[in-house]
Structure formats: C-alpha cells, structure tokens
C-alpha cells in the first residue's frame, strides 16, 4: 500500500465516525434519543453513499486525465455525467423513477454518452477531437435535459427534476447504497485494471501500442469503468461536479505521477471530499440545507479558474 493510500484511508477513518455525529442534530451517543436509529438508518447510509460516489468520481477523474493525457479532463466535461443525468431525467419525466428504474436509465444514459464519444473520437485518439466531441455530447445531453424540464408533464415533475439535478444525498437510504456501491466499485475495479495501459499512454498512443497496449480494449475499459463509476453515482445522487477534476490534481503531487498510482488514492480522496462536503452542507446554519452539488461547484469552479490561470502562467 502506498503512502497516499494510507493517508487518505486514515483520514476517512476519522471523518466517517465524525460525519455520523455531525448534522442539524449533533448526536451524543449517550444522551440523544433514538441515536442508534438516526445513525443506522439516516447518517450511516448517507455517509457510505458519499464515500461511494466520491470514490467513483475521484477514480474516474484520475483515469480520464490519464486517458486523455490532460489534467483538465473531468468526467462531467465529456458528457458522461450529463448523459447519465439525461437518462435519469427521462425516467423522472416518464414517471418511471421507482426502484431500480431511475439508476438503470441513468446508466443507459452514461453508457450512451461514452459509446457516442468512442464512436466519434475514440478511433483516432486525438485529444482535441475527443474533447470537442465530449463537450458537444455534454451540451446535447444538457439541451435535451432542459427540453425535458420545459416540457415536464406537470409542475411536480418539473420541480422533482430540477431539485434532483442539483445533486444531493439528503434522505438517501440503504437501498441507494446497495444500488450504487457494487456498480461503482466494479467501475473503479475496471479502471484500476486499466492502470498499466494508462501508464503506457504517458508516452503517447504510438509508444503505448508498441508496448503491447490494446487501444480498443483500453477504450472499452474507460467506457465501462467510467460509465459504471460515474453513472451509478449520478443515478443515486444527481450531478456532483468538479470532484473528478479537483481530486486527481490534489493527489498527483503525492504520487510519482504514473496514472496507475493515482487511481486508488484519488478514489479515497474523492470519498473524503464528498463525505466532508456533505457534512458541511448539513452543519451550515441555512434555512434549507445547501445542496451538495451546488456546494462542490462553489468550491470547484474557482479552483478550475485558478488552475487555468496557473497553466497560463506556466505556458507563458
């Protein structure tokens, strides 16, 4: 186990129990009535879900950045999360949001976005084409999502869609954990298996192929891995932005720079970030709880700008 993995595991081990106690009601295990009930039925599933979703986003971000050899890559930028959101919105729009259907719709949406991306830009592997194609898919999915909102069958459906899109972990149950956790973990597993191929890609696509990497297999690993890890997260929590972008950046200096060494610590750091952010959302003394997706974008967007400024200075 590498040092960053140990570090983030340790921090998670501290943060998780804290998140079980923190909230609108601070729990004193000895005094609070129904403490066990609150922890077991509300806060533990919510905390675990934050960990699962954050891990999926962190790992996907690390893998995407490795795949595109670009530190600005984020699963959200490339149409996967918007695709998943569109799928979920369609489920809400059609009134099929019960049980397994909403996440299934979201997964189909995520897979569709990735397949489209691979179809358009996967063959040549050119970063510019891949990026542009992904952004087009993201805006197409976004436009279709807006269309679905504007054509919502009734006001209730509309508000349900809008509030779902903002991303939150409020009132999530064990069912959501059982849905998202296996899929996300499978996705992270696929991405970690692709780690060595991503390492080879550090040298460019031709050199990677000369090292025996199969580009088609790697592309599929990226599609399936990111689709599962991000899609299942979006399915149970809506759009949670910027985790996939920020986390690999913060973690990269702690590693030797090889993409394969970045995936596991990014998963853990992503879990930590979402867990802590969700805890802060609960604690903040606002009239209604701050949506997690909004909170992370509030942190993420300025970070992204800072990153661009820094890169501009380095390039200048």
């Amino acid at each position: 186990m590498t040092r960053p993995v140990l570090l983030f595991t340790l921090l998670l081990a501290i943060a998780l129990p804290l998140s079980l106690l923190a909230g609108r009601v601070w729990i004193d295990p000895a005094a609070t009535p129904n403490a066990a009930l609150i922890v077991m039925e509300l806060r533990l599933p919510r905390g675990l879900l934050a960990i699962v979703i954050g891990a999926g986003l962190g790992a996907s971000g690390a893998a995407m950045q490795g795949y595109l050899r670009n530190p600005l890559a984020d699963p959200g930028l490339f149409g996967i999360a918007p695709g998943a959101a569109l799928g979920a919105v369609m489920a809400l729009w059609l009134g099929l949001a019960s049980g397994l259907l909403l996440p299934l719709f979201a997964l189909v949406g995520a897979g569709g976005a990735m397949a489209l991306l691979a179809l358009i830009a996967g063959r040549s592997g050119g970063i510019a084409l891949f990026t542009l194609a992904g952004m087009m898919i993201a805006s197409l999915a976004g436009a279709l999502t807006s269309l679905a909102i504007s054509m919502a069958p009734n006001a209730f459906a509309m508000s349900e869609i809008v509030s779902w899109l903002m991303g939150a972990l409020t009132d999530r149950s064990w069912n959501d954990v059982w849905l998202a956790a296996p899929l996300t973990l499978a996705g992270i597993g696929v991405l970690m298996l692709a780690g060595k191929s991503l390492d080879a890609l550090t040298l460019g696509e031709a050199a990677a192929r000369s090292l025996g990497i199969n580009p088609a297999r790697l592309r599929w690993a990226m599609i399936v891995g990111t689709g599962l890890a991000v899609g299942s997260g979006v399915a149970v929590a809506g759009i949670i932005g910027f985790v996939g972008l920020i986390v690999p950046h913060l973690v990269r200096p702690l590693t030797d720079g090889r993409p394969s060494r970045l995936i596991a610590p990014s998963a853990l750091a992503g879990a930590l970030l979402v867990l802590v952010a969700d805890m802060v959302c609960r604690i903040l003394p606002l009239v209604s709880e701050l949506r997690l997706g909004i909170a992370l974008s509030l942190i993420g967007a300025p970070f992204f700008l800072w990153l661009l400024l820094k890169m501009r200075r380095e390039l200048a």
Partner: protein
Amino acid sequence: MLEVQDLCVELGGASVLRGITATFRPGTVTAICGPNGAGKSTLLAALAGLLPAASGKVLLDGEALSAIPARQRARAIGYLPQAGEVAWNLSVEALATLGRLPHGDSDIQAVHAALEATGMAGFAQRPIATLSGGEKARALLARVLASGPRWILADEPLAALDLGHQLAMLRHLRSAAQGGVGVVLVLHDLPLAMNHADHVLVLDGGALHASGPPEVALSPDTIGQVWKTRARWLGEPGTRALSIS
C-alpha cells in the same frame, strides 16, 4: 532477423510505401534516410508492428509480425517515436520503468542497468520536466533499453540534440548493437548516417531507392537523384563530411 517483403502501406487511402523489400540484421545499425514524406517513419512504424500492411509482409525471425501477440512483440521490439512525448512529470526512474510493461513486472535491476547504460543513473529521481532535451532523449532511450528488446527502432532520435548529445546517443545505440540488438534509425542527417550506420536504406516517394553499405547507398549520384542536390563526400570513411555545391 527482421524482414519486409514487398511491403505496401496505405494511410488514409494514400499509398505511402510501395513494394519495399529489405532485411535488417541483429547486431547492426541500419539507417533509413530520405527526403521529407519519403515514408521513413511509416516504414519504421510498420517494422514495429504499429501499421497494417496493405500488401506484403513484415517478418520477425520468419514469423509474420501481425500474427505475434502484442505483448510478445513488445518484448522483442522497442519503439521510440519521434515526438518524445511524456504526458506526466514522472521521475526518470518511473519513466524507464514503463519499459517493463510488456513483461508485467518492474524489474528494478533491468531499469537501473538501462539508466546506467545511458548515463542517466545519477538522474533516477529527477522529474522529467527538469531535464534538458538531451537528458530527456537519453531517459526515453533508457525506457526502451529497460525492456531488454532484441530490436530498437527509433524515429529521428538525434533530431533535437546538439552535436555532443547526438554522438553520445549514437554511442549508446552502438553499444546496444554490439550486445546483439538490431538497431534501426530514421535519420535526416546524412553525414551521421554515413559515419555511424552499418547499412543504409534510402527511400524516395514511398519506394526503396538504394540499399547497402553507407558508401554505396549514399553515393553522390543517389544524393543527386533523391535530394536533388549536388554533393560530394570529403574525408575518410568513418569521418566523412558532406560538401554541397
């Protein structure tokens, strides 16, 4: 033995290589020369098994290269592309360790031997971004050497280097060849090819124009026909200089 037989390669519908037949021998340094667009890099990539043949074949020890599993091919043939891209700021050691990917290990002894052979042992922990162009080129060569290939195919490995680093690089490649490795280089610089290669292929417009020892393949006649330049060689074999009139 690495051979191409009547090899034709098409890129985007255009015929880039037409009917190339050549044999590359272990333990020798072969230079592929030719004007821009002659198909040098394409031939090298085809030798590395990275491009499909439209017709004809590439054979490694008599076996069709396209039929050899990618990992096995990667262990036999090390390929150094022209761009020298390194996407992340790895340490020199981590970069060289990428050469072990076809073996599925990170044999630290092989990596250190490769760093030693390229004079990069003292740079093992240095991030790539802090290296000069010449040091980076040696680190990338160490990556190829670390996999212990039987063939090294390098596309313009000397292009961005100063004279001293060019000669150092050629020394490293020559010592690999003396160890039995077959070295194939795309070279633009005709005097370097003349003085340092055992065998030279001259490509022109996708076809093989000349092949043989450098004194034969790079004769003034050939240079006149292929590069449209009147030139003659000065000095003695091994230290030739090109005089262009």
